[in-house]
């Protein structure tokens, strides 16, 4: 197989694994999040907390992370399963975390919204929009002070560009000339409100440019395009060029959380967007590269099998002991809880 076809197939494999993970987690969440008001069953969901799915946005996580090393650092958003998986986290431990089990990446203390795997440089999803941005530039600042070769990839959504930390963090990265790639994963919607009408000016890229952070806009559903652009920008960051900005435009296939049917969206828009499913686009490209359909289907099958096993393992995994609620908080004064 040609080198570019081999790379694309590897990218596709990670996207397929993310898609399978999101689909499985979505099913496991049904019946949970009663607060959304849509719960139709009293059976407790296997994933009981809010689940922000990145279905449809896989190409951004995969195209960027394919250009990171294991030791590079990454900060993510509340919609962070894809980034975590693409950075190399173990899917069994990820699914166990969503299920709230002791064997999860966070010992069941964080769930989907705080999923993290520091062992692969993934410094955490975050429940607060734009909150990962100052953390990312701080981590990059530390890497620079410590004269380390690694870089930081900072994922955030289009909604984040309207929060103060966006401005502060971009400015900080420029002022200290830090090794950070900002990735605006623009799914065009802020929770349940379209971002466009809520945003002054021309949006993310123009704001970054105005602050002296060079970058580029890319079709975030085309994993080859994301991969190529991320490769270029990350090479510049690694070369000591300072911060760069990747504006990847994509589309969120699901609601804000898994039990949100997103009825507030124009169905024609959703149907049109589905035609640009990043997995479909990648499949087409694979076929054009001469990859056999069976090889592609085998990847899909392997991904499904892997995630099915993760679901089975997670459901069988032990719950945390209640005593674990009192650990990992602070050393000073540990034991004095009242």
């Amino acid at each position, binding site marked *: 197989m040609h080198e570019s076809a081999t790379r694309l197939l590897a990218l596709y494999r990670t996207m397929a694994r993310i898609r399978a993970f999101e689909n499985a987690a979505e099913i496991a969440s049904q019946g949970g999040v009663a607060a959304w008001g849509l719960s139709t069953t009293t059976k407790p969901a296997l994933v009981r907390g809010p689940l922000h799915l990145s279905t449809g946005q896989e190409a951004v996580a995969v195209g960027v992370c394919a250009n990171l090393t294991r030791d590079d650092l990454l900060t993510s958003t509340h919609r962070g399963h894809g980034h975590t998986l693409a950075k190399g986290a173990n899917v069994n431990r990820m699914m166990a975390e969503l299920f709230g089990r002791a064997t999860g990446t966070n010992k069941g203390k*964080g769930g989907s919204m705080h999923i993290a795997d520091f062992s692969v440089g993934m410094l955490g999803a975050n429940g607060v929009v734009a909150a990962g941005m100052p953390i990312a530039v701080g981590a990059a600042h530390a890497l620079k002070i410590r004269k380390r070769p690694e870089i930081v990839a900072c994922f955030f959504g289009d909604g984040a560009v309207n929060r103060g930390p966006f401005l502060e963090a971009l400015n900080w990265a420029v*002022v200290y000339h830090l090794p950070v790639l900002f990735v605006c994963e623009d799914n065009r919607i802020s929770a349940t409100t379209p971002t466009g009408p809520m945003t002054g000016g021309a949006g993310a890229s123009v704001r970054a440019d105005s602050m002296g952070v060079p970058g580029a806009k890319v079709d975030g559903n085309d994993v080859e395009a994301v991969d190529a652009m991320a490769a270029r920008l990350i090479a510049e960051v690694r070369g000591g060029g300072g911060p760069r900005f990747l504006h990847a435009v994509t589309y969120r296939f699901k609601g804000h959380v898994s039990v949100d049917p997103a009825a507030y969206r124009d169905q024609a828009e959703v149907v049109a967007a589905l035609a640009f499913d990043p997995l479909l686009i990648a499949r087409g490209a694979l076929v054009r590269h001469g990859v056999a359909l069976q090889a592609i289907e085998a990847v899909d099958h392997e991904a499904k099998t892997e995630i099915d096993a993760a679901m089975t393992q997670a459901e069988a995994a032990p719950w945390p002991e209640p005593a674990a609620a009192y650990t990992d908080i602070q050393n000073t004064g540990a034991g004095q809880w009242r």
Partner: protein
Amino acid sequence: MALMNYSQAAAAALSEAMTADATVVALGEDLGRGGIFAQYRGLQQQFGADRVIDTPISEATIMGAAVGMALAGLRPVVEMRVVDFALCAMDELVNQAAKNRFMFGGQGRVPLVVRMPIGLWTASAAQHSQSLEAWFAHIPGLVVVAPAAPDDNYGLLASALESGDPVVYMEHKELWGVEGDVVPGSRVALGVARRLRDGGDVTIVTWSKAVPTCVAAATALSTAGIEADVIDLRTLWPWDREMVLASAARTGHLLVVHEAVQVGGFGAEIAAAAAEATGCRIRRLGAPRIPSGYSKPLEDESRVTADAIVGAVTTLLQR
């Protein structure tokens, strides 16, 4: 032993920590010229601008970047100028720094000292005068320290830097010039209070700038035959329950004094804990629930005075 003021004592502790550990850095606005209270004087010249970092006026990112620095191998000291400005960095402190270790299942820790000077500061009005220690004592994951004397500022800051936990470190803006003897290399353990005066009639628990005021009040009470046990809490979380509750049980009377607004103040926590544990008689004394005014007659309404403390003790003992 060296005579230092409260500000110099902190600079000495930080300088020694930075000398001993290359991962200790300080970041904040105007640190290069020594900080606005001279508490960083000479440090940038000594350690360079990479380790004593002048920052943009970006409180949220000063705090958030410090979290990222801590996760990537440094031990940052954050300067917020005054606690009032730290309010621009609440998500970064409360949701990020304090929660990081727990919510990520202990994968990382955030060794971080956040200095945010508190208190009335002559004619500084409503946005530069607050004492918000109770806010942070309420947050799981944070240590809260409020030193009142140069030796404690030296020993507590050194301990805070060594603790590995996120520490909210609250110096008082009207104490910078106070002088006292400091023993180089000394440490004050976090969570241990300091008895400033022995007495059997009433327990007075206090911290920060209210400490010298309480000592003055205790001296006045003594001339009237009332002996107060005066305890400087020094650390608000974890607080020294053992010393406070033993004293309250012994004297049977507890007065808690702080400069912060009395309503919802940390004094209420101590009062309630003492009531549950000892059944002692209790009074609290703090500022009225009013913003600090600019003009002296207005500002003085927020000040806790020695006379007011004497009055509160007298009432407590009469009841």
